[in-house]
């Protein structure tokens, strides 16, 4: 793949009001990746790649996404989609946070960390990510650390897992089903490793 292919790619960020996206757009700017906002269904057509950001409460985020009327259109997408943090959790069936039914693209569940395991909640900080051979992690160092901050996690399922992490128990740091990708950590805050991952995503075809 050459520079020209990259420059033709433009990321659409689903703008549904769940958390601030300033840091994400700043990270894309630093990488020279062009982007725009997705406010309605027609906007989804404008971009080669889609990012679903998200911070905060998964149930509340799902409600906000439903209000945009974009859920069915997102489900039908065949272009690369990346959910970040709560944006990734939305791709799953269900979250224990607010006992909420989510988009359900990936048939797995989002669960609350178990205090009984002797861990602090939220899981906050840099943790080693054990990724499989996946184009999202091209040129990322094995067991590189990414920045996490979350109280709910995505259950490990070998069918969809492309990167795992251990905190109390082993769970998915990244998942994939067909053209849908999700990362639990924040690539926009994860130093060089995170920037590489965003670049990789923008080049996935």
């Amino acid at each position, binding site marked *: 793949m050459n520079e020209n292919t990259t420059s033709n790619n433009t990321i659409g960020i689903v703008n549904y009001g769940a958390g601030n996206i300033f840091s994400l757009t700043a990270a894309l700017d630093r990488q020279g990746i062009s982007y725009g906002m997705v406010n309605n269904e027609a906007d989804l057509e404008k971009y080669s790649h889609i990012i679903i950001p998200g911070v905060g409460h998964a149930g509340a985020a799902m409600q906000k996404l439903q209000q945009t009327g974009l859920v069915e259109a997102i489900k039908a997408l065949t272009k690369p989609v990346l959910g970040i943090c709560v944006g990734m959790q939305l791709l799953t069936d269900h979250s224990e946070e607010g006992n909420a039914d989510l988009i359900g693209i990936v048939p797995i569940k989002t669960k609350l960390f178990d205090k009984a395991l002797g861990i602090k909640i939220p899981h906050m*900080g840099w943790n080693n990510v054990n990724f499989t051979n996946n184009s999202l992690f091209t040129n990322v160092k094995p067991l590189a650390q990414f*920045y996490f901050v979350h109280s709910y996690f995505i259950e490990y399922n070998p069918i969809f897992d492309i990167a795992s992490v251990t905190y109390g128990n082993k769970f998915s740091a990244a998942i994939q089903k067909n053209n849908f990708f999700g990362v639990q950590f924040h690539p926009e*805050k*994860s130093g060089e490793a995170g920037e590489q991952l965003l670049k990789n995503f923008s080049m996935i075809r």
Partner: protein
Amino acid sequence: MLSKRIIPCLDVKDGRTVKGVNFVDLRDAGDPVELAAQYAQQGADELVFLDITATHERRKTMIEMVKSVARQLNIPFTIGGGITEIADAEALLNAGADKISINSAAVRNPKLIEELAKAFGVQFVVVAVDTKHVDGKNWVHLNGGRLMTELQTETWIKQAEQLGAGEILLTSMDHDGTKAGFDCNLLKKVNESINIPIIASGGAGSMAHFTEVFQKTNVDAALAASVFHYGEILIPDLKQELSRHQIPVRI
């Protein structure tokens, strides 16, 4: 494995970093953006900016600074100082701050913690606590340690956790500035009583102090200012040293 975090703290006044900063290759030591980028490159895991501006222009200046930092910085950062209401916090969030830290505003109005956590999530809310040992007990102090409150430190921190604090930044005023090491006894006690991350602050003078606080207390992060600003401890050296002691760090 979750790494222990090393956090340089920068004081900011009128949008400029203050306190002597001693990096040789820094063009402008007062430029928060350049300084932040420098620390990120050295391997800092996170940064804290403490705003000590006292003027009416404070909020506007701060927002501009936060935006500039967020545009350049690829690691998380926290903003503290002068946050008294939801609107302050929301403006900082939208400008790209990852967390905000509240101190005296939380003591004066504990409900603020709850409101912030509800509005933006617990991960956004750091409660900073300045503590001093008086007559055999630990008391929360305000105004940089000058004003003693009637709150016992351990009780207040537990209350803050229940109200929705996502993290505690605990500064021992007895140790702050002494360079004699962190207050490991208190940190250990507090750390064992809560289930949210805790940042140790006050007293860092040598690399051994960082090793000690992580070995003795299991806190999640350690914060320092002058030892980093004056180049007395270089972050890459510190991380190597911690790693040699089997303390998990990001290198």
